[in-house]
């Protein structure tokens, strides 16, 4: 199966939050009543039981005019996924169709993935000690269906298909969007090796709470690619050296004992024979 992706066209999105509901419904996630956030946004952030939501960003323009930005936030299923690299227990795997899938029984809720996600997506359920995030509707898409959010999207702002199709469609959508929003751009096609979500943004990523140039912290590479092999080598070398030294030192000790015995007049059996 080739890599699949979602194209999320923010220029078409009406913030109806239908995707938010259909995600909850398909994944059987209980509704959560949140406190008033001060804006149209339904909840503060994603949560272990809320894998996608429309985030609202208010901007006060220099003239005093208000601009309103919103974006569907969800796991990007990155090609170069920080969460997957940070996971100490192989609880995250990349499926052939591009899904970064979590393996329930391997996840211990340690939260390392949380610290290394450039988009702040994984959320840890502290009671169950499990991380939870968007599954890309792995059950649906591996059975030839589209993700629940894409299926329900009325203005066709969420489109599902192969990554190559979506990358090509992005150009088409961009051309349309630029008529209305001249600052439109494609986000996610080149970022982090290509994200599993390609956005058409009407304006700069910063206005939608997205990092301009997402990257994985160098400490992640330092940790997993440098410190881990070096540390394993160091501990292995220490074990090998002491093991070897133990054998040599025992042999030396035996030799000393042997010569001491010979000085005393030979081994036990020899002495018995002699007298």
């Amino acid at each position, binding site marked *: 199966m080739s890599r699949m992706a979602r194209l999320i066209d923010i220029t078409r999105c009406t913030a109806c939050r239908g995707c938010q509901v259909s995600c909850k419904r398909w994944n059987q996630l209980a509704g959560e009543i949140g406190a008033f956030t001060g804006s149209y946004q339904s909840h503060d952030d994603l949560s272990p039981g809320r894998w996608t939501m429309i985030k609202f960003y208010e901007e006060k323009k220099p003239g005093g005019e208000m601009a309103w930005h919103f974006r569907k936030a969800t796991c990007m299923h990155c090609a170069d996924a920080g969460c997957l690299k*940070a996971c*100490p*227990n192989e609880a995250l795997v990349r499926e052939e169709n591009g899904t970064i899938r979590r393996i329930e029984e391997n996840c*211990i*809720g*340690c939260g*390392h993935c949380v*610290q*290394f996600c450039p988009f702040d997506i994984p959320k840890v359920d502290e009671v169950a*000690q499990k991380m939870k995030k968007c599954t890309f509707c792995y059950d649906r898409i591996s059975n030839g269906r589209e993700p629940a959010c894409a299926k329900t999207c009325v203005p066709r702002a969420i489109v599902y298909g192969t990554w190559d199709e979506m990358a090509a469609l992005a150009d088409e959508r961009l051309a349309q969007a630029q008529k209305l929003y001249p600052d439109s751009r494609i986000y996610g096609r080149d970022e982090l090796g290509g994200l599993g979500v390609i956005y058409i943004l009407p304006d700069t990523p910063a206005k939608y709470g997205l990092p301009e140039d997402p990257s994985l*912290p160098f*400490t*992640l590479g*330092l*940790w997993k690619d*440098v*410190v*881990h092999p*070096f*540390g*394993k080598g*160091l*501990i292995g*070398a*220490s*074990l090998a*050296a*002491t093991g070897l*030294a*133990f054998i*040599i*030192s*025992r042999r*030396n*000790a035996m030799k000393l004992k042997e010569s001491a015995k010979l000085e005393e007049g030979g081994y036990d059996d020899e002495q018995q024979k002699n007298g």
Partner: protein
Amino acid sequence: MSSKRMVKRFSAAVRVSHWLYAASFITLAVTGYLQFGSALDWMIPLFGSLEGAMVVHRVAAVFLIIAVVLPLLMRPREVSAWLNEVFNFSRADADFLKAFPAKFVGVKKEIPPQGFYNGGEKINSLIQIICGAGLIISGLFLWLSAAPPTIMYPLHALLMAIGVASAIGHIYLALLNPISNEAIGGMISGEISEQYMKENHGRWYEQVYKKRV
């Protein structure tokens, strides 16, 4: 052979804290390694699950910190004497290291008179002090901070690897090496024989007996 004359080496408080540190350190190394490599994965059932191992890791961490704080409060003079010695690396200590490879494989070799700690013990002490302090600080960040600086992850792993590699050598020399394992008595009963003291810690021997004369 006449009965050995024994010399007091470590006070009870220091010995207790050493063994408390040792037990917590080994527990921490094993449970921490489960997140680092897969060679010890067969030990997971001992802790119930990996989550259980992480709980044990934190409990052991508390004991390790106690093992550091306890002698600082109870025997500050002994601790500061140790630190003074360790951070004072002399010519004789460097010369000890030349003879160390032979001693490491169990061959007795003439060494320049050593103080209360020999050059090798000083290096192990230095490594354990630096790694221990770094591990406690980075570990507290990882444990208590909601968003720890990400450098703490590689730092914690690196210091663990260095500390464990050094501890393996320390354990071998104290328990299994036939020419140096007498030193373990100093950490168990608190005493070592005067003979061993004279042979391995000549400068300390002189200091003790000059004072008396």
